[in-house]
């Protein structure tokens, strides 16, 4: 089941740790912004104005370029009711779409199962991160998890000498032959062989890849390059996942936030240039989310956990613009000092599922949520 070039692809970039919404989309004319951000406010001379209301900090220059091109959708006030302000719980809710109980299936795990119910392509989803993100986890759904460089992905990456490596993996594969009826041994065998197959398939990607584009040598630069390599190799991958952080800027926020977003912006600039140069951009959208925004009033050097945040979708087929409004900064409108969410993240997922991936969103996000019109 090889995907055609037209098959839509979703790239998710997770901004782990809680990105500061107010310093990403600065309401620069709002006096309450200045009142609340005495320590970590962004100076007027460092603001790239998007319009008369909002501005990016200067370290988002490449994203400003995408904005000017009309390729960047900005969703305001995103979150959900009763935000718990805990990284882990909040991330779980974003991953499983279960706000009231602990979910066992990730929303993208369900997407993969829809795309490939018979498990014909073990690289339908490829994740670049240290672990299997819960968003991708679902029983019986294979996900290739690439923790290091793609070139060394697979079992026993420490064994580099080529003939020895081949010999080891051949033995490995035979040792994992699933014997039907052997219960857990059969299951581990299947899993081992799926993973091995995935590693085998992905291995061709860096070898096939040729590009003039230089990616920055940062963790996110390497991940985005890996995604481009797999995407260019036409392996039928429909969902890519990667993370970057930590955006948990309780202290020393100003330089930290600038370096985090700086790395992401340089990475995205290279990634989009690479995709465009190879005619591989028009079937890709990039979703960028964080588990929550941060507290309105700074704490003297950083900001604490908040509620509503901003979510971004970038791509050639995206209808650029603002969606929704920033929740009020007025003290009486805040919830425990935080912006009160006015857009449910599951509405954004639903839009992507419906209009981009052409799947029924209701069983995937566990309900019906208002869609957001950011796709053509």
């Amino acid at each position, binding site marked *: 089941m090889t995907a055609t070039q037209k098959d839509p692809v979703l790239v998710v970039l997770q901004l782990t740790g809680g990105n500061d919404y107010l310093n990403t989309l600065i309401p620069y004319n709002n006096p309450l912004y200045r009142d609340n951000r005495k320590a970590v406010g962004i100076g007027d001379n460092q603001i790239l104005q998007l319009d008369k209301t909002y501005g990016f900090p200067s370290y988002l220059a490449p994203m400003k370029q995408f904005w000017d091109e009309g390729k960047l959708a900005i969703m305001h006030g995103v979150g959900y009711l009763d935000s718990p302000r805990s990284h882990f719980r909040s991330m779980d809710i974003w991953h499983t779409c279960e706000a009231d109980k602990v979910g066992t299936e990730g929303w993208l795990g369900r997407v993969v199962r829809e795309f490939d119910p018979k498990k014909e392509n073990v690289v339908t989803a490829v994740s670049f991160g240290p*672990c299997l993100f819960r968003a991708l986890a679902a029983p019986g759904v294979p*996900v290739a*998890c690439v923790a290091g460089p793609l070139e060394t992905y697979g079992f026993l990456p420490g064994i580099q000498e080529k003939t*020895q490596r081949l010999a080891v993996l051949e033995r490995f594969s035979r*040792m994992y*032959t699933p014997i039907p009826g052997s219960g857990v041994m059969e299951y581990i065998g299947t*899993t081992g062989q799926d993973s091995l197959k995935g590693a085998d398939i992905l291995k061709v990607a860096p070898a096939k890849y040729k590009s003039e584009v230089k990616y920055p040598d940062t963790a996110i630069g390497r991940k985005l390059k890996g995604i481009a390599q797999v995407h260019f190799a036409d392996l039928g991958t429909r969902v890519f996942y990667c993370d970057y952080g930590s955006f948990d800027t309780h202290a020393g926020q100003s330089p930290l936030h600038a370096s985090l977003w700086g790395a992401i912006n340089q990475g995205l600039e290279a990634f989009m240039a690479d995709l465009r140069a190879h005619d591989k951009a028009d079937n890709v959208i990039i979703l960028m989310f964080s588990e929550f925004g941060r507290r309105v009033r700074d704490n003297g050097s950083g900001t604490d956990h908040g509620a509503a945040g901003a979510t971004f979708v970038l791509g050639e087929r995206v209808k650029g613009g603002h969606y929704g409004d920033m929740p009020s900064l007025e003290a009486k409108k805040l919830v425990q000092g935080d912006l009160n969410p006015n857009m449910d993240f599951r509405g954004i997922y639903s839009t992507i599922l419906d209009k981009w991936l052409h799947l029924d969103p209701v069983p995937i996000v566990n309900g019906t949520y208002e869609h957001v019109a950011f796709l053509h």
Partner: protein
Amino acid sequence: MAHQDDIALIAHLMRRAGFGAGRDELEARAAKGYDATVEELLNFEAQPPVDPYMLLRYQPAALLPGGQPPMGNVNYMYYLVNTKRPLEEKMALFWHHVFATGNSKVDNYDQMLEQIDLFRHNGMGNYRDLLLKVARNPTMIFWLDNNQNHGTEVNENWGRELLELFSLGAGNYTEVDVREASRAFTGWNFETKLPRLPYGRFPWKFEYRPEDHDDGVKAFLGHKGNFNGEDIIDIVVQQPACAKFICRHLYNFFVADEPQVPAWNLEPPRDPEAVDMLAATFRANKCEMKPVLHALFTSDFFKNARFKHLKSPAEVVVGTLRLTGGYEVPRPGYGELSMQPSYMGQDLLNPPSVEGWHTGQEWINSGALMSRINFVAEQIGNTSLPGVQAIVSRLKAKGTMEPEQLVDSCLDLLGPMEVGSETKEELTEYARQWGEIRWDTAAQSAAATKHTGELLQLIVATREYQFA
């Protein structure tokens, strides 16, 4: 020298009642005997506790790690790897599985670590006393919202989980019992948290608020009275279902994999007689854990359960680090080591829910399998680590060997492990590429050491190695 069967049995005991052991330790224990080893494990007080100052000297941030996962996990991992009281630490992990409390909500590793300490100090004592301490544990109170359980407005979260997950199991109480138990625990609260930042962290303390307690009459599991929380616990532990539930947990954790807890009132235990025997011991000894553990570890069903338990990520990581050695000092880099179980699907101090981790086969998925194999292979293939060197020295002492002997010896020194005939054949075929293994010259010895590392890597990559 100890008999091979004795070594294999002691190795089984140490994998289950601890986190495995190197061959030197196994031989020393086998010389003392199986029963003496069980006694030593149970009477852990005779061994020194872990030295926390060594940890703090290298990782000061591990003292009050706040919300940082690596530092909270560094602290816990240091104890797991360095304890000389393996069963104390294994039982603390057991109770962490049962009374699963997660940093996802608590957002404070200081409190999570304090709860683990509670399990260390009380985990092998009396279950009734432990349950009472857990009910008064601020971390648990916050985790299950008992601080929101008021005399005027009952919150059933703690009352329900107490019965469903911590003592009786679903099907052994009614909704009325949940309500009445919850009423009895009203007013069991903790001192108000001070804001975390910028004032630092203060330990949470239990606080009983009589004005918030519902002192009315409660009808609970056939008893009636003006019960308070402690009365509820006394009634709970007298239920036959309680003994069976806790003992099934012990069986699942120490003996062989059971279905997941929510299925327990639907599916019978795989060995009902074993659970009944343990439950009878539990009741006869009035909830004392040591006699139950003694009965378990000396039973035939335990001794016959070799390799019937899929290793949890904690067992994989801790077992590997204790075998290879070299991690006695918490040097920089410990943070990454301590996060390894989470990469394999077991985020210690942060179970996915109050139900705890799903165990057995559910530990395995593509990423998790790759993570566990790659981690263990990287460690075991590092022939500079003391534990791996010890394996090489023992092989060297055997002198020149054929590929078959090399495979047998490595399987022996890594377990002794039992593998299927197909696996054995693949391992032997692999070793044949090197021909005869010799240690006579420096060059031969270097090559033999390298090949040993390579073979050990393939062995830890087998399916069989995933079982304990």
